[in-house]
């Protein structure tokens, strides 16, 4: 649908090839194209600004001036800077020295937390771990049932002492989940929590209380790759509220450019650990910054 960034830049810089030198005006025009491409990819506006400033500075340096094909060189710079922001290397999950390790999932409604809980459980089990899923979303209709089904599909037990649908205390369930894991010798606990808005103070406090009760090794912020400019508000609210140590990007099997990856990473500084790319439990991978950079640019 959108023309790719390389197409855009090639158009802007047409005729410049062989000229071997870009004027500042050429670079400004180029920067405008990059700006639009990033906005179309849903990169958050403040992040776009900072990013463009960085790229401009590099583009005015000698590496572009001396390039045979300035457009290509600019695309290369953009790509490198993107990978930089997205995090050069993938960080692995932090696990506790003394098991059980605790991983708590948090995010907006419908982001893909419960599905991710199942994916992580299955993936960890495949690596020889013995995870336990804890059903601490007692709010969304049948969230507990959903996690039970997901657990069954993953072949991983689910601790679900409360029926949910408004009944039970998620903080207490989480705490008891850790005790259960210790008693039954599970080495990893995955706590599925209810979806919540960044602006919902009561629900954010609940997440903070769950965190305090389980003292997690990782709090993963789960974010939908289709999210737009709100990524900044929401990521900031979760960072300042419950706080998180890593990010998981979901629904990457669609065709959203996923500029949110850049926004969340740049705004919170937390690494993106995993990419979720389908509804089935095996549709899941560690995050690859280089693939994400190409995707954002449409290349």
């Amino acid at each position, binding site marked *: 649908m959108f023309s790719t960034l390389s197409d855009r830049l090639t158009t802007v810089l047409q005729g410049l090839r062989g000229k071997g030198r870009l004027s500042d005006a050429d670079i400004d025009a180029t920067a405008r194209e990059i700006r639009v491409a990033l*906005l179309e990819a849903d990169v958050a506006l403040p992040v776009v600004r900072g990013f463009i400033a960085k790229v401009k500075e590099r583009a005015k340096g000698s590496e572009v001036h001396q390039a045979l094909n300035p457009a290509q060189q600019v695309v290369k710079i953009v790509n490198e800077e993107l990978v930089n922001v997205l995090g050069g290397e993938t960080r692995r999950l932090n696990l506790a020295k003394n098991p059980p390790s605790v991983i708590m999932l948090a995010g907006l409604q*419908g982001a*893909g937390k419960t599905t991710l809980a199942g994916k992580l459980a299955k993936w960890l089990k495949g690596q020889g771990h013995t995870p336990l899923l804890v059903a601490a979303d007692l*709010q*969304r*209709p049948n969230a507990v049932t959903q996690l039970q089904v997901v657990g069954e599909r993953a072949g991983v037990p689910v601790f679900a002492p409360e029926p949910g649908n408004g009944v039970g205390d998620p903080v207490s369930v989480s705490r008891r989940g850790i005790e259960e894991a210790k008693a039954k010798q599970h080495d990893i606990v995955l706590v599925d929590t209810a979806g919540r808005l960044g602006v919902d103070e009561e629900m954010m406090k609940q997440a903070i209380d769950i965190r305090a009760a389980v003292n997690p090794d990782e709090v993963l912020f789960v974010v939908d790759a289709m999210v737009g400019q*709100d990524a900044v*508000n*929401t990521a900031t609210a979760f960072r300042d509220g419950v706080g998180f140590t890593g990010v998981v990007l979901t629904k990457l099997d669609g065709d959203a450019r996923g500029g949110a990856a850049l926004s969340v990473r740049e705004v919170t500084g937390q690494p993106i650990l995993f990419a979720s790319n389908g*509804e089935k439990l095996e549709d899941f991978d560690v995050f690859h910054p280089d693939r994400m950079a190409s995707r954002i640019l449409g290349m």
Partner: protein
Amino acid sequence: LLGAGDLDEDSWQDVEDTLLIADLGAATTTEIVSTLRSKIAGAGVRTEAEATALLRSVLVDALHPKMDRSLKALPHAGKPAVLLVVGVNGVGKTTTTGKLARVLVADGRTVLLGAADTFRAAAADQLETWGKRVGAETVRGPEGGDPASVAFEAVKRGMDTGVSTVLIDTAGRLHTKKGLMDELGKVKRVVEKQAVVDEVLLVLDATTGQNGLTQARVFAEQVDITGIVLTKLDGTAKGGIVFQVQRELGVPVKLVGLGEGADHLAPFEPGAFVDALLG
């Protein structure tokens, strides 16, 4: 702010930022700004308040405030009205279906829910919980079964029991998945064998960015969308993608979702929407 009947550059920047941050997208933002520029030049705007009022009216106009946003949910020729709820994963289809049932039941109608999401874990249970909450029967099929046949059975049951409205909840599916989109087309065609589908509501999540337009296009091609429901407007997201969606599809936003509760559904009002966007 104002010099010689125009805004200064910082103010123009603020206007542009407001629109971009609301997810209107780069092209629509440029258009709105240039419309505003020519209006401001023509109207001889003197104060910041006048400029804001003008921006408000340009935005409201861009939402085609005269569009018919009524919901066709009443029975005809002795047959129930049938509504189909569609959209990508996790946007709020099942919740919206439950809330819609609540509105109709409160209005004295009888409603039947069809759980045509046979795929997602506990999707039918979730809908059934909603049904119990609002007082509507739920027709469901076997897990992993054919969604079209559940939809068919639901409409059949609705006709047999003489309900006023059958609401069919479908599975979340990404518009990029051809097989799932074909399946959705089949759900609709099968329903149409025995009843008219009065509304196909596309649920869009207000947090969605520019991909929302692509979603809308592909769903519209597949099942002729008749209305948009914009959910999760109770958060910080503004939902500005609907400017492009409404214009391109020529289909109105009819309802907005304002929370997870049964009563958190409201008619879409362009003025209020724009006020929230600017506020």
